[in-house]
């Protein structure tokens, strides 16, 4: 088990290194960072001055070294310093960490809403396979995978905020303002978890030990509750973990629709303001969380299922 965890950690570190490399190269993708950062009407002298000030005139490997380990006042990204925001003139990392709680709350609530719908619906459609319950939930899951979540968000605003006036269109302060963004953000995860719950449960219920239990006279409720569900839990737990990772970094558009003050909205604002230190810090930090959640899921999976070999 320890070797398994160490190997997972090593792999995660490599992934994070790749992410940091991409984040570093971001500004160099057009060939010249000044293209991206300076206004078009800047003179040659201004560009040269800017490049010198930012260190863009140095060889690229020196820039990369400085980016990782810092130089002069900058501590380097390995110590969490992505430089100051061009726009707000405060450390970029601080701006991002301020927004993390909102994103995490939205992702967790969206996942909880999804689970409350998806788990019972998945179980019911497996148990009542090929009845109207099953057909109805498969229509729901098909819809969930076809409706773009941000459009659903807009429609929810029109219905519940503009027409019925029950819920606020945006904001963060009241508890009820999370209802609409969570519903919209959780849509896709709900559909996927529902499908997974159903197909895993069907697979387990076709196995011998379930038949054995049935033939021993165990009641159907107990067969499903005790024997089948326990064994269906592992893949479902895995996909729940993966969906959480996806939600943490994937609610960008929903945050914009509902003016939800999370990292995604910050990134869109910063891109529009050409504020790249903030964008770099946000992509790096969210990757860090995303990789962390994935690693935790892997370990949890290995721990839940004794058949997984750790070697």
């Amino acid at each position, binding site marked *: 088990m320890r070797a398994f965890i160490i190997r997972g950690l090593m792999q995660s570190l490599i992934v994070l290194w790749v992410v940091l490399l*991409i984040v570093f190269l971001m500004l160099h993708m057009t060939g010249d960072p000044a293209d991206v950062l300076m206004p078009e009407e800047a003179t040659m002298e201004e560009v040269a001055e800017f490049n010198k000030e930012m260190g863009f005139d140095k060889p690229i490997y020196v820039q990369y070294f400085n980016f990782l380990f810092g130089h002069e006042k900058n501590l380097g990204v390995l110590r969490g310093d992505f430089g100051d925001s061009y726009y707000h003139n405060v450390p970029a990392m601080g701006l991002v960490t301020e927004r993390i709680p909102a994103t995490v709350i939205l992702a967790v609530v969206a996942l909880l809403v999804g689970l409350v719908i998806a788990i019972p619906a998945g179980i019911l459609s497996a148990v009542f396979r090929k009845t109207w319950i099953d057909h109805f939930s498969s229509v729901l899951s098909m819809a969930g995978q076809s409706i773009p979540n941000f*459009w659903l968000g807009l429609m929810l605003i029109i219905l519940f905020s503009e027409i019925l006036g029950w819920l606020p269109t945006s904001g963060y302060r009241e508890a009820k303002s999370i209802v609409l963004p969570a519903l919209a953000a959780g849509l896709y995860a709900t559909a996927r978890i529902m499908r997974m719950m159903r197909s895993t449960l069907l697979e387990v219920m076709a196995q011998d030990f379930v038949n054995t239990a049935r033939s021993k006279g165990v009641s159907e409720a107990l067969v499903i509750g005790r024997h089948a569900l326990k064994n269906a839990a592992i893949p479902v737990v895995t996909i729940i973990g993966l969906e959480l990772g996806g939600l943490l970094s*994937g609610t960008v558009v929903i945050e914009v629709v509902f003016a939800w003050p999370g990292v995604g909205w910050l990134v869109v604002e910063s891109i529009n303001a050409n504020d790249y230190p903030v964008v770099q810090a946000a992509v790096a930090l969210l990757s860090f969380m995303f*990789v962390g959640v994935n690693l935790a899921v892997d370990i949890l999976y290995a721990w839940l299922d004794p058949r997984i070999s750790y070697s």
Partner: protein
Amino acid sequence: MATDNTINAGASSKIDQEMDDRGPSELQLAWRELLKRPPALFGVFVIITAILWALVPGLFSPHDPLLQDLERYLKPPGFVDAAGNTYWLGTDQLGRDIVSRIIWGSRVSLSVGFAAVFVSGSIGIGLGLIAGYFGGKVDAVISRIVDAVLAIPFVLLAISIIAILGASLQNIVLAIALRTWTVYTRVVRGEVFALKESDMVTAARASGCGTLRIMLIYLLPNAFSSCIVVATIYLGRMIIIESSFSFLGMGVPPPTPTWGGMLAEGRGFLDTAWWLTLFPGVALTVTVLGVNLLGDWLRDVLDPRMKRLDD
């Protein structure tokens, strides 16, 4: 890719000729199968309509999608102007006809969708063939790259890249393909692993076939049906991703009509003009739904292994 297609097309037309003497061709059989499944038939209808819209929008569009007229801004569906023109789905904040903009908007959605599928498919299938055929270290390296790419928060990275490189059709496709090739690599790698020890491949090798020939003529066609299924399922997702980029202002820039862009413009009028956001979203959802329904059917027909207990 192009050469494989011509090889396949050549081979299948020969088969078609032979089949004519023997009974219904595969295409005829597929059509009969399709008639048995109304949702998939609906999907085919939707996709053909959307493709026609995208190819010759001028034939279907009742008005000029770019023609502004502030005399008729924000008119509700069914509005008839002084000259007797009807605006079936109303007009937007600049007086442009919504029906026409939806029809022209299919261009961007479909071209990004198909191009992204083609680019990611080409890269992914190629790497999958290599990883599966050579195995060992080559496979290990490719598989680790796939793992790393999958662990990077995709949406954030993609919008940052588009923001830096500039929003053009080409860059959007590139940003999307950066991630989605991995799916094809995984599928093809698995198929090739299973096939490469088969008698067919051994016989081909014994009769002196080169590596490339074995890959293209023996392995690729056998992995192709899974790829078609994956491509169809991902086409829907690509279309949603493109629309969310357009919604965030990172898509093909205005005045080119895009469904996501129309939703972004309509967002400012949720309280007064619901038709601005309802109709483009319906077009988007119905298109994706059509693609998904067709994908579900293709999966059942072409790839029974992927079906498992899903139906």
